[in-house]
């Protein structure tokens, strides 16, 4: 029996691959560990997209390159995946989807899902027939599947629900009767888990951070978060504004915080590039801002629907002048809630811009998580009621100037993008400039108590370090779990870095840094911060996330495992 199996569905945009994915994952999560992710072309119809669903008997949050079971949706969905097949891969689909040569070459199982769907009453049910077939192979519970189908189709009426259940059952029974057998048995101690996407957890985290205003201009893969919060407008009181451009979006977010709201924006690298002047504005005005940057491969339009971790430098250095900021990059699914909420808290507490740096892969994958308890102390406003002689930029013994908002209290809140005095009036005094600048930059010191340490997993000697940040958590975690000599050091708070990291790096014998970019931006940051050379890097930048088997192979080549 295998520890995990990899199922891939391949078809074109608009054929309903995602439906099969969602139904399958939603019903399987009652019985086994499961993780899924899709790779799609930047088009609405046609092309070739695929979904990978991994089923495992231990927790997973990563993909494999090699495919065990491949379900085809048409006659042009095999070609691109050929390098991912191995001698035991089973291909399932209609007879016409493969050439005669291919049928001889591979393990082909003819199943006509459209015919099954027609038997159930409508050819449109074919993807539910496929869902049934896979469930049948896995011998999984019909009950959960029927629940999932009913829940999803109830609004379309009883006939549609029944038709789909029939299609499911026909597929299920066909699989049970077929000679094809799945080489997998779920872990008997498995307890049901929740399935969520990165986008889901960020939206919940933002609500826990008290978000009540979002201004953004649509750009994949940052838009889903905007849509999820728009859907919460009435239940939670989130005012969502589709701005005319990203420049307006971040300026509106800053204006909203100034007037007492808890505001954020969401975008991708290209959109964020337009926001950079306003990042600097948040810096000098000491105004909070929460900015979600959902990375996709650049430069420029790049690969709009793919993934990369190449905007760390952009976010790290965005904005002219010098001022403090915080950057988070979630890895574990559950961290998304905590870190997104914490972004609001730190932005407000330190009056700085805080970044959530995610990526397409992390945002759109379906992963499992235990119960998450939402943080309770991140949604409170750090604002004061002003007195008559209030000075927005007062030199306070705490190091932070208490933040008032217009209309609350007897004072005036005067905020300036020019260098200013305590009151907020523009000044050309060199002395005042130095004092204000030092007050702002001193937040780097104040923040030290709030920096998060990287997580350290695996071998406790910490001699052979595998370092990652953000979305590579799952793939490195899986490799380290089966290679006991390795220690996985993972960063979700990527800037500023805590001082303790230096000894971690100095005391190690070997260090390799894993990044989904071409230049090793995070390795460079570590190098620059701690003065330690980190030449050993594994980098991937073709637009895909790392796969477990591929990364393990690369580590082998470097004599690491």
């Amino acid at each position, binding site marked *: 029996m295998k520890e995990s199996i990899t199922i891939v569905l391949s078809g074109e945009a608009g054929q309903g691959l995602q439906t099969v994915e969602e139904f399958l994952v939603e019903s399987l999560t009652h019985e086994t560990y499961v993780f899924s992710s899709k790779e799609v072309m930047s088009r609405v119809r046609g092309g070739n997209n695929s979904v990978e669903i991994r089923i495992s008997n231990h927790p997973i949050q990563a993909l494999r390159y090699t495919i065990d079971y491949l379900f085809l949706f048409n006659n042009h969905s095999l070609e691109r995946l050929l390098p991912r097949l191995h001698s035991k891969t089973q291909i399932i689909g209609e007879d016409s989807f493969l050439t005669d040569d291919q049928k001889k070459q591979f393990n082909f199982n003819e199943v006509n899902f459209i015919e099954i769907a027609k038997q159930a009453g409508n050819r449109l049910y074919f993807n539910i027939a496929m869902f049934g077939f896979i469930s049948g192979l896995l011998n999984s519970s019909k009950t959960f599947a029927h629940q999932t189908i009913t829940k999803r189709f109830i609004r379309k009426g009883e006939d549609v629900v029944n038709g789909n259940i029939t299609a499911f059952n026909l597929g299920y029974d066909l699989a049970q009767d077929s000679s094809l057998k799945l080489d997998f048995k779920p872990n008997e101690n498995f307890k049901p888990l929740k399935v969520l996407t990165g986008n889901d957890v960020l939206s*919940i985290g933002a609500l826990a951070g008290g978000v009540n205003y979002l201004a953004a201009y649509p750009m994949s893969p940052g838009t889903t978060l905007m849509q999820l919060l728009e859907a919460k407008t009435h239940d939670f009181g989130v*005012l969502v504004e589709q701005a005319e451009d990203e*420049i*307006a979006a971040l300026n509106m977010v800053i*204006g909203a915080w100034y007037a007492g709201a808890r505001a954020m924006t969401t975008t991708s690298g290209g959109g964020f590039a337009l926001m950079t002047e306003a990042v600097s504005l948040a810096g000098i005005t000491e105004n909070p801002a929460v900015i979600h940057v959902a990375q996709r491969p650049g430069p420029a339009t790049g690969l709009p629907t793919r993934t990369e971790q190449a905007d760390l430098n952009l976010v790290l250095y965005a904005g002219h002048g010098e001022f403090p900021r915080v950057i988070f990059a979630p890895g574990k699914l559950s961290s998304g809630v905590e870190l997104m909420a914490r972004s609001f808290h730190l932005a407000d507490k330190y009056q700085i811009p805080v970044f959530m740096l995610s990526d397409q892969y992390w945002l759109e994958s379906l992963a499992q998580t235990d119960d998450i308890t*939402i943080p309770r102390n991140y949604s409170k406003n750090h604002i004061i009621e002003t007195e008559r002689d209030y000075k927005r930029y007062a030199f306070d013994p705490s190091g932070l100037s208490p933040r008032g908002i217009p209309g609350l209290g007897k004072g005036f809140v*005067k905020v300036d993008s020019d260098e200013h005095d305590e009151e907020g009036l*523009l000044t050309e005094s060199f002395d005042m400039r130095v004092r204000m600048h030092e007050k702002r930059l001193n937040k780097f010191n104040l923040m030290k108590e709030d920096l998060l340490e990287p997580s350290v997993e695996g071998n406790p000697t910490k001699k052979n370090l595998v370092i990652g940040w953000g979305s590579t958590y799952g793939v490195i975690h899986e490799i380290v779990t089966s290679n006991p000599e390795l220690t996985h050091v993972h960063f979700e708070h990527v800037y500023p870095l805590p001082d303790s990291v230096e000894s971690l790096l100095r005391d190690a014998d070997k260090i390799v840094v894993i990044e989904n970019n071409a230049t090793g931006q995070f390795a460079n940051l570590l190098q620059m911060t701690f003065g330690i050379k980190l030449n050993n890097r594994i980098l991937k930048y073709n637009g895909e996330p790392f796969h477990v088997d591929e990364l393990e192979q690369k580590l082998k080549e470097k004599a690491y495992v």
Partner: protein
Amino acid sequence: MSNFNFNYDIDMAWCPGCGNFPIRDMIIEALNELNLDPTQVVFSSGIGQAAKMPQYIDSNYFNGLHGRGLSVASAISAVNPELVVIAEGGDGDMYGEGGNHLIHNIRRNPNLLHIVHDNMVYGLTKGQAAPTSPIGLVTPTQIDGVYNEPINPMALALSLGATFVARGFSGDKQKTKELIKQAIQHKGYAILDIFHPCVTYNKINTFAWFKRNTYWLDETHDKTNLQDALKVALNLDKLACGILYQNNDTPDYHTRNPFYQGNLTPLYKRERDLDKVQELL
């Protein structure tokens, strides 16, 4: 009695004879006469000589980036409907760098007054052409004179559906002050373009030029009629001052945005129910 004037001296960064001085007086008098509470008023401006105005008025302000004063103002008004919000800046700031925000905020019809100081030149950066500069104006970056058409901000605002469109002149203090008062009281977006001379950099559009080339609309002008307003705005032989157009029927941002549904409580007074967030999981 409210008082938006400073009771202490401040070194204002405008040239002697600048039209910004009388505009400042008008704004302060208008706010005082409306008896507004200075703590409930917010100015939002960009960068430029005109955009320095909030520094010289005792009230709240957000003096942000060049071109972005209107975006910030619009968001301030959106999240706190109780505030009186004024966006203010020069013609370069608001019609050039901030042009896209002008277009789209007119569509939002936010509850704010948008004052644009129209001196037909860039002041702070020393005399380059503005989007409103007349053809022929010689500047350090247009040595043979401006050759692009100037924009017509009044016609532009009207064509986009602005609900209050007016023009004033720094040389007509009383009348322009009344425009400011009416614009503040308008429910929705009000644009007030105020002509004023730049005594240092614009030798064409001088005080005397504005006197010669402007006139004030009288009661024969029907300000509720968009066609009439457009006709007036498009007449460049003589430039009209006064309220070109006012429409009280179009709902303002807070009324049309389904978020509010009649509850105009500012966002900062609303509490997040964290138990309800936990239920999402």
